């Protein structure tokens, strides 16, 4: 089976998996023993049956559940995810507004994790049991075990409040003019609007939350890379490469590290999912207007269209990342696509 067929088969499966996800999200969100009326209609208004009926009609809650689901699916295929009960805006617009902020944060955190975790893991393995290795292992253990909430607060207190090295929470200084919303990525929007002066401010605001969010992934990737490297460094082909007189750096990076990356790719994929869920907490601490805060508000308001929308987006990201991991596997190890 060639690579393109393999990828094509995986892509064809995606819509079916997404429909399954919508059904699961729908059933789960409607099994909560609470009524959206309680979460969204005022105390006095809830006592008026006419107002309650108007609310149910407006949000389509007066129809049988199977009918609600089919209507939802019908709209979804046309790209309409309904209107959010908690923001009164189209869910697609809400997602378009919140998702870029989370992607910006998660991608920055992922890049930091790779840039820190992989070299650290390689260096640790190369200097096994040295002081550097001990420090690196302890650091990665701290990264894995430290609660993001606590780490975020500490980072804000030390780097923002005490040292003044980092700017305040949020995506931009609120006293600066916000660039018009085009892509939702603040840096890009600032450049598109010709407000390049905002770019350093936006990047500075991104640095601390991205660093905090990356802590877990840095720890996992470092440990995984180190372990994988130690396994590979004991293999015959590495010994052969060394026996051939190749320089140590070449053996380490070209021969060992490349082969050690395979299991790390899986961890990277899973870590990205972890970054998305970890972003909920990081976004709260850093007042980052991403998908996490939207998901939280949707859940507490029993905002079914928004809950479904978030569920579909997060699941799609997971599916996409899994697909990319599988493709990366297939690229790195031809035996996988042949199987």
């Amino acid at each position, binding site marked *: 089976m060639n690579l393109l067929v393999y990828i094509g088969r995986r892509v064809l499966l995606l819509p079916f998996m997404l429909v399954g996800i919508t059904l699961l999200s729908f059933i789960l969100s409607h099994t909560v023993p609470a009524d959206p009326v309680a979460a969204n209609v*005022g105390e006095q208004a809830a006592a008026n049956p006419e107002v309650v009926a108007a609310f149910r009609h407006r949000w389509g809650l007066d129809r049988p559940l199977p009918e609600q689901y089919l209507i939802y699916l019908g709209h979804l295929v046309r790209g309409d995810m309904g209107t959010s009960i908690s923001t009164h805006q189209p869910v697609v617009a809400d997602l378009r507004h919140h998702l870029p902020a989370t992607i910006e944060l998660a991608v920055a955190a992922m890049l930091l994790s790779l840039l820190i975790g992989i070299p650290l893991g390689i260096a640790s393995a190369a200097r096994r049991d040295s002081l550097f290795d001990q420090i690196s292992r302890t650091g990665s253990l701290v990264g894995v075990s430290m609660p993001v909430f606590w780490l975020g607060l500490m980072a804000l*207190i030390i780097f923002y409040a005490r040292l003044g090295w980092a700017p305040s929470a949020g995506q931009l200084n*609120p*006293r600066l003019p916000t660039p018009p919303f085009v892509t939702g990525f603040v840096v890009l929007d600032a450049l598109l609007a010709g407000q390049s002066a905002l770019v350093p401010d936006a990047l500075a605001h991104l640095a601390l939350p991205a660093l905090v969010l990356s802590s877990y992934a840095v720890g996992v990737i470092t440990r995984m890379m180190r372990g994988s490297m130690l396994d590979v460094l004991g293999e015959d082909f590495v010994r052969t490469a060394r026996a051939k007189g190749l320089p140590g750096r070449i053996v380490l990076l070209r021969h060992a590290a490349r082969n050690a990356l395979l299991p790390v790719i899986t961890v990277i994929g899973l870590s990205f999912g972890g970054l998305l869920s970890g972003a909920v907490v990081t976004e709260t601490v850093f007042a980052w*207007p991403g998908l996490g805060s939207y998901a939280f508000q949707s859940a507490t308001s029993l905002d079914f269209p928004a809950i479904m929308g978030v569920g579909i987006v997060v699941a799609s990201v997971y599916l996409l990342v899994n697909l990319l991991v599988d493709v990366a596997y297939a690229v790195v190890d031809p035996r996988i696509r042949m199987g």
Partner: protein
Amino acid sequence: MRSREVGARSKSRPAGRRVNRRTFLTAAGGAAGLVMAHRLLPADPARAASSADRATLVAAFSLTIRSLDPGRALAPDELMVTHAAYDSLVTFDGEDLSTPRPSLATDWKISGGSRLYTFTLRSGVRFASGNPFTSADVKWTFERVVNLKSNPAFFLDNVAEVTAPNPRTVVLRLKAPQPSILPILSSPALGIVDSKLMLEHGADAGPDAKTKDQAEPYLMGHSAGTGAFVLASYAPNQEVVLVRNPQHWRGPAALERVVIRNISEATTEALQLARGDLDIAVGIDEQNAETLRRVPGVTIRESPMAASFVFMVNMDPQIGGPLNNPKVLQAIRYALDYDGILKLAGPGATRMSGVIPNILPGALDPREAVKTDRARARALIKESGLSDIKGRINYSSSAINYGIRYALLAQKIQADLAAVGIAVELNGLPGPVALGEYRGGRSPSLFGGYLLDYPDATDFLVYLPERLVGKRLHWPASSSPAAKELAQWGDEAEQEGDAKKRVALLQKIQRRLIEVGPYVPMFTPAQPYGFRSNLRGVTFSTVWEVDFSTIRRA
């Protein structure tokens, strides 16, 4: 906060639940972080002066905004924005909620057996769009509110007709006398909307407005009022930006631009206020407020709220159980440690004798309040002839209002009742579930802070038999002669036009209510908030929170 993490002695904790290592570390780390946060707050707000932009005010709230359409918005954060952008016929100054003042109406006359309210409108007022403000806008606004059948529609339940005999006069004909209509008209939900502009954006005020009106999307990004500010932008869950309306009839506000940011983490807000990156922080809790009091350049204040925190019991014996026995109810009143409860409620909270908050005319003197007397409570339990008294308290486990953690308050009540031999199980529920249980009349007992909808004591008659809260506690007027009498007094109080007689009647109602009703009044809360000390005119109203039009920098 998860529901099962509170109330360690709660029987509602699932038997099989275990705390694993990660959960423990997360909880311990989070708690340690909060403690350290309080120790490490900066002592010197070094950047405050340099970053301060005098033209822009930045305020932080844990925002809950569903709609910015004044015909639909009723949550406090929503009213803060609509109050800034829309003027009503009458208003209140600062935190006062007792004396309605002229706003778009310059004066009013009451006639026709207290059923006709004739308002003279201010002349020369224009909407931010430039359209002139007339009585037709008032009539159209009120009709739209009624016909949208949304949250604020009940405000005008008693209005039979709105007429506009000339451009400067509006007449409201009521179905029955209702002196509270004046304070009701101060609500930003009844802020006057530019009807001409709204019609261009799909608005409808007719009988089918609830399905035909399409103006809300426009109003989520723009405003259409005469207010001191204009809505410049709204990003859900992120921020609201207001800019000054240069042609406001009171003259331009001192602030050019107001940015209201959504920050849900109290410590983040506190740090930013201390550093001078925020001008006003409303989401801080009491712990942060205590720390901020020591920070130079920051003022911390607690404003008393028109809300009543009351413990209540379901009167249906199948639901309330032995707790609704009259003697047991009396015992609960004497069992609670009110001093301890006030400490949990935080500075500014005051003991409440009745159900009407202390800041409203008609409230009982706090000195009349029941004092803790455990011996008497035990004697009352003995008199009840009941043994093994058990009950259950429903509450929203994650709720924190006015800096009060409901989970802690529930534990305090549980401990106080246990001290006199009443065993109550804590049933912490997610907010909407707890609310649904209460509204469905299924809560055995509960406590909560009823927040006023409009600045008048009669709003708190909801506790009477047959009324909003009474009904949810299964307390009909037919249940006893005393309940029937209370319901009748409530009707009289609502229609009484003489202020002194009204206050006397309201006080009589409350004294009787706490004798025979299923209520144990606890306290009137206060809202803690902080702001930079160079600001003047900062107030916090129960109805519309912060009024940005009165704020200026020193």
